[in-house]
């Protein structure tokens, strides 16, 4: 007999211990430039602005910046740089610092910005005592100190809001020619002394991977100081808290898009996405910076209020003032290109960021419904059975998903014809009930003779090349694969054309696309991605040969996935002659992703910790422009027990992207595979989502107008309430619903923070219409069916109570308006309606109305009367919660119609229901109340 202990050890080894293998991923010390730059903290910055070179023209200040050896008496100029400071609309400035005459052009990130930022005016106000003062048209000022170089951005009150290079960590490593080692050179030569090359300059190794670094070191860095800030946020994607932590005692936050198997929680490790925008918030103001760089990036954060920050440092730097946060960006390549957004409120700064990188366009409405996915629905019969089971169990669903197994042995744009012999018929079965199909298309292409994509890509040179200029081969799902180089316009064009219906038989306008593995994931690559010395396409240009004739993967890594989804988006537009809105889901993200795709938080696990993380991760992403975010409901790895599954559906129902997904090796878990009581709870959660699909749709429409997040942190709406600054298990939908999903097992109650005490805000429990006065935390009792959601007093939320099989089938259904009264007995809201799938709304084919309630009248008014949409939808019910003095009669006035309405009082006589006003939502109307 073997001892039992041994057996257990072996069993554990076989079952597998869940968790990331950290050894596969670099720490700062293992990443050459991070190790090199992190300790770089000179007493005094070597960077100096040459005041004689300053030119202000239009919205731009240009000047020469030099580095000077500060250690010698003689001020020897070491290197020359070109500085550009631009004033942009909406309280934003841009600082660009590049070498004046670089050996090769340095990479400037191409796709993050939504076109060239719009210019504001810039005036030079004074140039005295080595200090420049500038102002934009709004009177927001920038102070530039020439030596050492420092930038101070002032808020509207004239207080310093953002400082650059306060800690002297501004750095642009100049590109240099690689010197062949010659021992006979004069060691006394001063220039040579500087060029003593550190190990790792011209190559680095990680595990068994070699990085040839043909350009040598080319890192950039800048430090940013936020006076008066209590917290900083942003730089997703991480599993850490929403409010960022001080990094001095550990690793910096890392941004490098990676396919991290079994990623860990509460970590600053890099995962799939990187959005280098950082916000600083305090009771005085909110500001932000956007680090426009697509290379590997590390960010250090020091919050002087943190207990971990040595108090001597606090005293030294701030004179005891604890309200200050410093951040520092370090990137492996590129230029220093930083946008400074001056707020002054959270909503302002979130908008300023989407002004730069674009808003999420209006998604097709179905994509706001419920998505059912699995790796994999194995064949057409399986898809049919899942589809039918939704109806049999009366659970609405809008989309069925197919993961990689639908393809002919992982060849994208093909079908496994054994299992999916009639894809068009399968799709037609779904669309008959208003449902859609989403199929996966990844950027790796199977290297197989006879596979048309591979052969075309080889023939036309559309693949990413290796360091020697040969086609790069990596390992991914299909086995040996190559990767489309979307930087090449020919590759983007070719790939986009694959989506044409004739090129991808079986697809139609109702088949949408999932771009996974686009970090890109390379199973045998360094850190499971592409080697940094791989070559990407660069448009040919005179004089740009050799190393200047291509971009290295290191320059572009974090935006690779963005290039793919952009190409997918283009292909989906073209396949329908720009008629239908594409829906795309991406795993890797970068600044600007929101213009093309929704995202999800990747391969999570069926654990409570991942449910909790999904809320804060999506909050962070939404603040970084990507509101269309969700997690794999139920967890990708492992199997969720009924309670976890229930809570995840309940949380998912209130997250923008609501999709259940699971790993191929896990037990099946469609909602009806649980006990009937659990299935009923899952049904209830999904139905709640469908009742609010039009509300979500309106929020996404309003996001296109104002660029602020759809899912919001509490501090966005209540910026003065300090308790809200670190809340990340609770959030707002628009400014109307407050959601605090139950994220903990076995709890009988949860603590909910209700903001708005100073303004006497009321929060109505959406299940009971019971009003709670905002007063910080209160204890909400919960049972397994309870989802704590509250409607703000003063808001009107449109609902559809007739939940059908899919959102499409609900298009003509009537609305219920829930009017939650504030302390002044007023409320307002809005509603957006269009056809849900085309771009006709851009030609004024929509209805967008403001709804307002006052004690004497309620009105529904189209914001843009020129915009019309002939919807048959109508108002079946108006619920007025919190009414203290109910009217005696009500009369609807719409067009020529004038009709008396019936009303009934409910609950403790404080909920008034107007029965069937039957007003059309296509035109204006009012209801007049008499007392």
């Amino acid at each position, binding site marked *: *007999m073997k001892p039992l202990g041994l057996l257990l050890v072996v069993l554990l080894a076989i079952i597998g211990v869940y968790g990331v293998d950290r050894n596969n991923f670099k720490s700062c010390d293992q990443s050459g430039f991070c190790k090199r730059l992190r300790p770089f903290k000179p007493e005094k910055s070597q960077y100096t602005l040459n005041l004689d070179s300053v030119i202000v023209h239009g919205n731009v200040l240009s000047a020469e910046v030099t580095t000077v050896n500060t250690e010698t008496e003689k001020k020897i100029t070491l290197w020359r740089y070109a500085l550009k400071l631009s004033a942009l609309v909406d309280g934003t400035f841009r600082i660009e610092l590049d070498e004046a005459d670089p050996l090769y052009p340095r990479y400037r990130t191409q796709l993050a910005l939504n076109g060239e930022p719009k210019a504001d005016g810039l005036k030079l106000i004074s140039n005295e005592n080595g200090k420049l003062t500038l102002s934009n048209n709004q009177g927001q000022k920038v102070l530039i100190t020439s030596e050492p170089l420092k930038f101070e951005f002032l808020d509207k009150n004239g207080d310093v809001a953002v400082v650059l290079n306060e800690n002297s960590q501004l750095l642009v490593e100049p590109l240099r020619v690689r010197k062949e080692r010659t021992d006979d050179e004069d060691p006394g030569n001063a220039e040579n002394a500087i060029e003593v090359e550190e190990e790792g300059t011209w190559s680095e190794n990680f595990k068994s991977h070699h990085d040839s670094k043909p350009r040598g070191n080319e890192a950039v860095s800048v430090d940013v100081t936020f006076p008066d800030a209590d917290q900083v946020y942003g730089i997703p994607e991480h599993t850490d808290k929403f409010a960022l932590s001080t990094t001095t005692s550990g690793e910096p936050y890392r941004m490098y898009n990676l396919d991290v198997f079994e990623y860990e929680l509460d970590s600053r490790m890099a995962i799939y996405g990187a959005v280098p925008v950082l916000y600083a918030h305090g009771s005085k103001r909110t500001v932000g910076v956007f680090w426009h760089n697509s290379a590997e990036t590390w960010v250090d954060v020091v919050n002087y209020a943190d207990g971990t920050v040595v108090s001597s440092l606090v005293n030294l730097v701030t004179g005891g003032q604890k309200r200050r946060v410093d951040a520092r960006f370090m990137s492996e390549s590129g230029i220093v290109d930083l946008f400074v957004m001056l707020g002054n409120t959270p909503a302002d700064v979130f908008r300023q960021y989407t002004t730069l990188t674009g808003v999420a366009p209006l998604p097709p409405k179905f994509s706001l419904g419920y998505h059912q996915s699995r790796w994999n629905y194995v064949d057409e019969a399986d898809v049919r059975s899942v589809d039918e089971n939704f109806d049999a*169990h*009366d659970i609405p669903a809008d989309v069925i998903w197919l993961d990689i197994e639908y393809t002919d042995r992982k060849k994208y744009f093909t079908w496994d014809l054994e299992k999916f012999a009639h894809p068009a018929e399968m799709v037609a079965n779904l669309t008959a009930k208003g449902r859609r199909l989403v199929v996966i298309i990844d950027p790796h292409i199977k290297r197989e003779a006879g596979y048309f994509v591979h052969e075309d890509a080889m023939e036309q040179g559309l693949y990413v090349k290796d360091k020697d200029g040969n086609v790069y081969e990596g390992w991914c799902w299909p086995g040996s694969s190559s990767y489309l180089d979307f930087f090449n316009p020919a590759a983007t064009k070719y790939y986009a054309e694959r989506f044409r219906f004739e090129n991808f038989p079986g697809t139609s306008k109702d088949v949408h696309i999932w771009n996974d593995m686009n970090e890109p994931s390379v199973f045998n690559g360094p850190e499971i991605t592409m080697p940094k010395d791989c070559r990407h396409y660069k448009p040919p240009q005179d004089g740009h040969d050799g190393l200047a004739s291509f971009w290295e993967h290191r320059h572009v890594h974090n935006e690779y996935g963005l290039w793919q989804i952009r190409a997918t988006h283009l292909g989906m537009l073209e396949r329908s002659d720009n008629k239908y809105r594409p829906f795309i889901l991406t795993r890797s993200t970068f600044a600007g992703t929101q213009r093309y795709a929704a995202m999800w938080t990747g391969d999570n696990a069926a654990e409570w910790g991942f449910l909790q993380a999904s809320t804060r991760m999506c909050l962070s992403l939404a603040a970084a422009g990507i509101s269309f975010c969700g997690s794999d409901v139920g967890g990708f790895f492992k199997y969720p027990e009924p309670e976890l599954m229930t809570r995840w559906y309940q949380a998912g129902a209130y997250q923008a992207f609501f999709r259940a997904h699971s790993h191929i*090796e896990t037990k*099946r878990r469609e909602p009806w595979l649980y006990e009937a009581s659990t299935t009923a709870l899952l049904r209830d959660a999904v139905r709640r989502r469908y009742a609010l699909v039009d509300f979500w749709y309106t929020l996404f429409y309003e996001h296109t107008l104002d660029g602020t997040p759809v899912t919001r942190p509490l501090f966005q709406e209540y910026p003065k309430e300090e308790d809200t600054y670190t809340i990340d298990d609770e959030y707002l939908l628009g400014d109307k619903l407050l959601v605090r999903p139950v994220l903990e097992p076995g709890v009988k109650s949860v603590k909910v923070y209700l903001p708005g005490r100073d303004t006497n805000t009321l929060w109505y429990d959406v299940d009971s219409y019971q009003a709670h006065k905002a007063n910080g935390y209160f204890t909400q009792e919960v049972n397994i069916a309870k989802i704590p959601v509250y409607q703000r007093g003063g808001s009107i939320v449109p609902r559809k109570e*007739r939940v059908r099989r899919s959102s499409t089938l*609900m298009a003509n259904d009537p609305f219920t308006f829930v009017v939650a009264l504030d302390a002044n007995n007023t409320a307002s809201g809005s509603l957006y309606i269009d056809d849900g799938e085309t771009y006709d709304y851009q030609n004024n084919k929509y209805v967008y109305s403001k709804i307002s309630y006052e004690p004497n009248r309620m009105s529904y008014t189209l914001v843009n009367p020129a915009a019309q949409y002939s919807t048959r939808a109508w108002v079946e019910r108006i619920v007025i919660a919190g009414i203290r003095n109910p009217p005696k009669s009500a009369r609807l006035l719409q067009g020529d119609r004038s009709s008396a309405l019936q009303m009934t009082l409910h609950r403790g006589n404080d909920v008034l229901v107007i029965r*069937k006003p039957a007003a059309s939502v296509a035109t204006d109307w009012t209801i007049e109340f008499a007392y």
Partner: protein
Amino acid sequence: MVISFWIGNFHSFALIICTFVIYACSEVPRPRGVSLSKSSLYSPTKDFTCFDGTVTIPFSYVNDDYCDCFDGSDEPGTSACLNGIFHCTNAGHRPQNIPSSRVNDGVCDCCDGTDEYAEPDTCKNICEEMGKEARAEAQRLADLHKAGNHFRLELIEKGNKKRNEMAEQLSQLEKDKEEALKIMAEKEALKNELEAKENEVLQVYRDAEEKERQRKAEEEKEAVTKEAMEYFTRIDSNQDDVLTTDEIKVINSFDKNKDGEVDQEELQYFLGNNENVDKDTFISTTWPLLKPLVMMEQGMYQPTSEVEDNDQDANHDAVGELDNDDAEEENVDEELAHDVDQDVEPEQSSQSYDEETQKIVDEATEARRQWTDAERTVREIESNIKNFQQNLEKDYGLQQEYATLDGQCLEYEDKEYIYKLCLFQKVTQKSKNGAAEVGLGNWGEWAGEDNNKYSVMKYTNGIACWNGPSRMTTVNIHCGLETKILSVTEPYRCEYKIELATPAACDESNITQQPSHDEL
């Protein structure tokens, strides 16, 4: 299934041509979406009270596209209530109840199209066609069951016969067992008697052997002592009959790790905690430790490599861990085999006995063999009995119609695999590219729903999936003229589904009669 749940069980005689919103033009006027059986609950001359009794509303509120009742009963004909039910008569086919959410959603759910009255052109009335098809299908099934019933009766007859035979065989076996036990007892007695004799005569030889063994041990000990003494004297340089550490330190043989010096650790090894060692202790303790080293120096002794030893241990452990069950079984088998060997041939001595003794030994050996044979016979019979009992306990259907199928194996091939179902035994899967056979489950139980227990078989506890549960197979049984597999699928990972046709499932009397009187 929600829909079938709501299907009522009644007939309609009404000719339906709808023209009004609320009333159907039939002999019995009733609101839209109400079944005949419930029509009396909707009286236009009275206020309407919700079925749950909570609210009473004017009759004009019935089907006015606004939900007044919590139970949805006021809106049988609209989509206003989330929990409402819409009834379609489906003249020509089966009537149907659908959730209200399917009314006027643009999808044709009722074959008569009445659920989409808002856009009357959306749906055609296809009940006649569907009814015809359904009736044809019902007829086909009825015919099949009828045809199959003949075979089924045969199966029942054979099954009962088989069972009776088995019962007979079982009682025969019980008798055989008694007989065999008797024989075994006789043989045992004989064996014991002869073995006693054998013991007696062999005692003489054993005593002699023991003496010889003792003598040899004695000699060996003396030789060792002599050897040790000689060595002791050689290294006891001052000849004081005590070896001190100084004396030892100069002797290479004590340098165990061959690093050129005899260090503290090595002294400790040979002397324990003593400073020195006298003759007796040397002989009893030190010499046995030292001797291999001395011999090695003299090139007479090759040590077994320690490293190799460890490796072998490790390998053995690893095998045991990975394949624990098998390993244990092997061990058990070995032990058993060993036991048996001992019983049968306890003393395989090369020694030759005198003729008389040899004869007695041979007799005893023969008696042992006979007893073993008798015992084996008993075991075989017992195992047979167990098999028969198990089979008799198996549930072969209400009328034993599945009894003759026990052990019958059916194969099915798809693109990648060959599946084999041995009824009431197991299900296996073999990859066509030659990988090993995988067990998809062993006979578990009948698992059909209460009123149809024999429609589903479950085979459970197959080979476990990686990171997942044990494989299992569900077999759905249909009436067919021959017993064969219709399809094999894996709808859920590691959960297989076999559709099986067999005449055993055909039953004329048990066909759910299609309600032909539903027709007009």
